[in-house]
């Protein structure tokens, strides 16, 4: 039995199983399904990554034609990445969902969607038939839609779900246009026909074709200005779903962009520039908006946009590397992109899981009402801070490694490229540095306000560390974060095959070896760094061994009655920053006025709003709504008008036909003259 049939059958079996079993069991069944599917697909994927790609052709009947299943190293890499996050997702999710059992009626549906979602994501990575690809893509989108609207009791959730549904539909429409384009010229649904087609047309047409795919995938990936669904969908979904969505699902867009980069034969230099510019904007904009968010998950969602931007920068570098036949650039770029994809899936899913844990403990996601959680939930705090440092790209964690690769590529490009490359790259270097600094600001805020200081508001329920089974997936992820951060050279070896999918024409082994030796040094320094911390800690312990440790209230600069309200809040922490970037933001303020001598309590609220969304989504929608309202005179209830439409239609058509005859006659007359 073939691989794909096997996976599909297993999925169907488990979905049926979930649907007809008790709610309490559904999480475990889903775990089983994910384990089995992960096992099968990982086996193939590992083989593909180490160089034995897999090929299978399924006969898809009269509609689909032959469906090629190709697992090359690129697919393999993505499958492995995806499997891991989906696995931790279900490990976490089945604990997370315990709270909702027998309350929502949607648990079974949720877990069934989870299984389907996993399978469809595997499918997206391996199926190379346009029509089948679109099918699977939409099944993926729909199943994730079901998962997003799990907490449907909240109207916000539904709104976000709708937004998600529409935007993913627009995404699929663009992909459809692109794939129709190719298939109408080649009369084949095989992805290989994309490369044969694009090789046969001029590079300008290929570019437009690629852009069509790019925008489609960019919606999924969340590049600015196509990102607007993301900050809505992530916060409302259950934590593990947000983790999987942010960790893996938006990477499907990255996968698509990469896949099409291989398939569409084009001018890589130009497309590289385009990707770089879009990515830089995404990166800076994403993090710039992340900082001002008060909702923890929304903050994380904007950070996904930032990280997608970073991945995009890496892809752009790689494309320029191919365009200029510079093997080092190409390798650093694509390796950075692939590694950062993996890294982001690790730390972002971890962050979302911990955000979910916090949410289930204190039932709010508003950062400003948290505080001091580190004392109640130390393990969660440690997991969170490791992920936070990793996402800021700080050594010795994994985020740094991929960003380092990207920097290497950029600096290499600066001194070896043409003037335009140099200029663009120096801007990118500045931009990437800026992104790093902003991320630092953002995550010091997030960690500091959530976990440190004193509690900023009172919660009725007792706050406890979550149970070990809920923390376990987090530790699993941290393990990988540390391995990548401390032994990066191992992972670069794994990346050689996936990257060679892109650079087959220009790369031989040497840039990889060079980078590996570099990373070995980094690994060494990272260990030395850890050693230094440990030794300073030991010295301190040694020096202080005989001294007593004094515990007092915080020194509050002369105030005698310091209380938790006096702490810096998330808003005040970023206030000066907010003033700086004011022009790029829309802050909706709701402020009451103080009235009377003995005024009643007043409230002031600020809500950041996305300016890109206001310009690119809201404004066109407003115009469209107006236009649509113009059309709505037709069904006015008046039958006489209904008849008139037909008469007018006939009259107009007859007149136009007549007039076109007259026009042709006149045209001929003029021609004769």
């Amino acid at each position, binding site marked *: 039995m073939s691989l794909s049939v096997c996976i599909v059958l297993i999925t169907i079996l488990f979905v049926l199983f979930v649907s007809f079993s008790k709610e309490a069991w559904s999480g475990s069944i889903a775990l089983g399904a994910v384990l089995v599917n992960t096992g099968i697909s990982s086996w193939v994927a590992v083989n593909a990554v180490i160089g034995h790609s897999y090929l299978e052709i399924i006969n898809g009947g009269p509609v689909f034609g032959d469906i090629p299943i190709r697992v090359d190293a690129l697919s393999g890499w993505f499958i492995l990445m995806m499997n891991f996050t989906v696995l931790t997702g279900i490990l976490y999710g089945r604990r997370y969902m315990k709270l909702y059992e027998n309350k929502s009626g949607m648990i079974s549906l949720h877990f069934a969607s989870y299984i389907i979602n996993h399978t469809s994501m595997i499918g997206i990575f391996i199926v190379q038939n346009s029509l089948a690809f679109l099918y699977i893509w939409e099944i993926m989108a729909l199943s994730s839609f079901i998962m997003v609207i799990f907490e449907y009791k909240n109207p916000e959730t539904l709104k976000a779900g709708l937004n998600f549904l529409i935007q993913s539909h627009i995404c699929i429409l663009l992909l459809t246009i692109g794939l129709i384009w190719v298939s109408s010229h080649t009369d084949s649904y095989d992805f290989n026909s994309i490369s044969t087609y694009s090789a046969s047309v001029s590079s300008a047409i290929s570019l437009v074709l690629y852009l069509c795919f790019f925008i489609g995938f960019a919606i999924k990936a969340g590049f600015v200005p196509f990102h607007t669904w993301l900050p809505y969908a992530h916060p409302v979904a259950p934590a593990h779903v947000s983790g999987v969505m942010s960790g893996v699902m938006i990477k499907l867009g990255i996968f698509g962009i990469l896949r099409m980069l291989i398939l569409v034969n084009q001018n890589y230099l130009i497309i590289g520039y385009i990707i770089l510019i879009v990515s830089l904007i995404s990166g800076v904009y994403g993090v710039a908006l992340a900082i001002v968010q008060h909702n923890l998950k929304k903050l994380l969602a904007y950070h996904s946009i930032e990280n997608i931007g970073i991945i995009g920068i890496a892809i752009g570098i790689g494309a320029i590397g191919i365009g200029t036949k510079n093997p080092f650039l190409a390798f650093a770029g694509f390796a950075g992109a692939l590694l950062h994809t993996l890294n982001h899936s690790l730390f972002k899913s971890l962050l979302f899981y911990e955000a979910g844990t916090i949410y289930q403990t204190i039932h709010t996601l508003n950062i400003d009402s948290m505080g001091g959680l580190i004392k109640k939930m130390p393990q969660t705090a440690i997991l969170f801070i490791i992920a936070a440092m990793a996402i800021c790209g700080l050594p010795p964690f994994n985020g740094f490694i991929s960003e380092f690769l990207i920097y290497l590529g950029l600096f290499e490009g600066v001194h070896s490229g043409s003037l335009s490359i140099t200029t663009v790259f120096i801007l990118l270097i500045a931009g990437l540095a800026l992104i790093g600094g902003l991320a630092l600001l953002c995550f010091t805020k997030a960690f500091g306000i959530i976990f440190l200081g004193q509690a900023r508001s009172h919660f009725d329920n007792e706050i406890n560390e979550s149970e070990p089974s809920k923390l376990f997936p987090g530790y699993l992820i941290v393990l990988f974060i540390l391995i990548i951060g401390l032994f990066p050279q191992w992972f670069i070896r794994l990346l050689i095959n996936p990257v060679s999918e892109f650079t087959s024409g220009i790369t031989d082994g040497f840039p990889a070896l060079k980078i590996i030796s570099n990373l070995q040094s980094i690994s060494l320094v990272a260990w030395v760094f850890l050693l230094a911390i440990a030794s300073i800690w030991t010295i301190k312990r040694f020096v202080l061994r005989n001294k007593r440790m004094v515990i007092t209230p915080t020194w509050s600069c002369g105030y005698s009655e310091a209380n938790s309200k006096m702490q810096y809040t998330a808003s005040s922490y970023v206030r000066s920053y907010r003033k700086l970037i004011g022009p790029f933001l829309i802050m909706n303020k709701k402020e009451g006025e103080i009235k009377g001598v003995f005024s009643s309590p007043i409230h002031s609220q600020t809500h950041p709003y996305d300016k890109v969304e206001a310009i690119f989504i809201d404004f066109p929608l407003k115009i469209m709504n107006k236009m649509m309202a113009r059309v709505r005179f037709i069904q*006015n209830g008046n039958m006489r008008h209904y008849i008139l439409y037909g008469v007018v239609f006939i009259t107009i058509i007859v007149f136009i036909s007549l007039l076109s005859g007259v026009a042709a006659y006149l045209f001929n007359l003029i021609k004769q003259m």
Partner: protein
Amino acid sequence: MTNILLIAFAISLIYMGIANRLSTYINILAVQGIILFGVSFIELIQINTINLIFILFETIVFKTIAIPLFLNYVIKKNKIVREAEPFLPDFLSVVIITCIILGSFILSNIITGVHIQKMFFLVAISALLSGLFIIITRKKVVTHIMGYLVIENGVFILSLSTGNKMTMLVNTGITLDIFVSVLVLGVFVNRIGNTFEEMNVDNLTNLKD
């Protein structure tokens, strides 16, 4: 002779434009039926006899007698006493119907290349458009049926101009169809009369978005 009858038909159209009383409309319809009888008798004398008899039967029995009587019955039963109540002033109606006839004239002159009797074409198109015009501008539901009948008359004239090549069965079907649809419409007019006080189309604008 045909042409004279056709011109008379066109005149009846103009008269319909300015007629106020519902009974006048019915009378005009009956007159039109007679004119159609005349025209078809003259035009179709050479086709096969059964067909001819059937068509003559249709014009006389249906168009001239049955339908006007039925309409009369509907009006009496629903106690429709008011006038035709057009949305437009009578004067404008006449102007527009004149324009329609003029336009049809121009149209019939434009159309070339097909063997057609222009007079038939002219009157048919005028009847058609006048019928639509009546439907569009009159308030009463009953007048809508009358407009519909005028359109049917126009279509009849048009089909006469072809020398009627339809087979017997099809012809029967078509005729029956028209008759049944008028009946059904009439039944619904009755219902409307029962349901609403005024048989105005203004009552029938509840279904809208």
